[in-house]
């Protein structure tokens, strides 16, 4: 299956092209946010801002943030945690794959339906990373599964904020695609 096909199926106003530079910048900002000196007591329920931002762009701009991007950002998370190289890379890749698979379907739901579709992904990603850690005898703390819950709860708000950013105007998009101006 090609990545181009689902893009062709979209005709909604939100599907205007996104500036690739803004996708990269917002992912960088998400990395910096996770690096802030959060209090240790919050660590177990702190949502994974990087995963939230990544999956938003995987949904809205799959050409800018796909499985490759997810893999690299997962590696960065692995290195940051310092426990196991490849655990988060694998779970982020799978999360991006899941979102790419349900992209078209997501378009048919309102924000509540989309949040319900994405919640298993947000819960499953840390669960998979912790499971890989458990299988590698690192005995991760199961309380950190809570971060998936907060991420799922935070998703509609973050998606609403990011919906308002980074789009090329419809006029410029029309110019670029060579279609007649409205």
């Amino acid at each position, binding site marked *: 299956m090609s990545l181009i096909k689902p893009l062709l199926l979209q005709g909604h106003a939100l599907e205007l092209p996104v500036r690739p530079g803004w996708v990269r910048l917002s992912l960088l900002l998400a990395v910096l946010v996770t690096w802030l000196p959060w209090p240790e007591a919050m660590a177990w329920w702190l949502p994974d801002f990087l995963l939230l931002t990544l999956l938003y762009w995987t949904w809205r701009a799959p050409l800018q943030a796909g499985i490759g991007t997810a893999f690299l950002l997962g590696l960065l998370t692995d290195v940051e945690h310092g426990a196991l190289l490849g655990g988060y890379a*694998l779970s982020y890749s799978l999360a991006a794959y899941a979102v790419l698979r349900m992209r078209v379907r997501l378009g048919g739901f309102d924000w509540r339906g989309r949040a319900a579709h994405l919640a298993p992904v947000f819960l499953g990603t840390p669960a998979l990373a912790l499971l*890989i850690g458990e299988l590698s005898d690192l005995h991760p703390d199961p309380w950190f599964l809570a971060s998936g819950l907060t991420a799922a709860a935070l998703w509609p708000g973050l998606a609403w904020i990011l919906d308002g950013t980074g789009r090329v105007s419809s006029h410029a998009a029309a110019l670029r695609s060579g279609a007649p101006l409205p």
Partner: protein
Amino acid sequence: MGMGLGLGGGSAIAQREPLFSRVIGLNLRLVLAFAASLGLLFLDARQGLMAPVRGAVSQVTAPLQWVLAQPFVGLGDAFAFMTQHRELLRSQEILTRQLATLQAEQLTMATLMAENAQLRALTQLPLPPGRRALVAEVVAIPGDAFSRRLLLNIGADAGVQAGSPVIDGHGLVGQVTHVDAARCEVTTILSRQLFVPLQSARNGLRLLGNGAGSDAAVEIPQMDANGGLEVGDLLVTSGLDGVYPPGLPVARVRAIQPPRVNSPFASAMAQPVSGVDRAGPLLILVPTAHPAAGKGAKS
């Protein structure tokens, strides 16, 4: 990330799908990512890939993280200054009193150590390798599911070595597990994967303890049900692994769980005696090649 190859920029809306797709399919991409991840996991488990990669990446990320933390450090300082003045005065009073006690204790300690050395020489026992203490401060407490860690403000430049035990004024805090040039990372005894060989100070019973993760406790997952451990017993390092010098206080037994059905082993929970989850100066016990050069603390 190479995802837009052959598509020209980001505007794919008006483009037709080419007859022969040159884009790697979604399933194949997932398989590639899985293969790469599993390969890395395998290499990491076999060759210990993480340490060198982390060393290289932290060259870039450590300064960035330091910069990010600065505004919050300033805020925290200001807040502390406003609210904790009285507390500081009180703690200074306590510290002054403690200092006097400690100084008195140190005097007896010096004589005791000299006496001890003489006795050891008399019995022809080899001296354990000397240790030098480096004073360190906690700069950050990175939180993640895999371990309970502390980031300290000195590193390889100050002579810190990976594997050195870390203590505070009350007992064992953990072990240095990663050393950068100017910082080092301590895995505390609360970590589930840090095992410490222990013995009961009361009756010499040997045990193996590890951290309990989110609880601020040390657990002894398996022990003889009739071993004679009691609530209130002090657990100290046994020194059997050669990592921790023997006799460092670690934890005090809080509860003992009798054997469950189908298990011959009892278990126990113990309360760390060190201030492992509190802030305070720590000592890193670095082995020194020449035990005579016990210059003491160095900041």
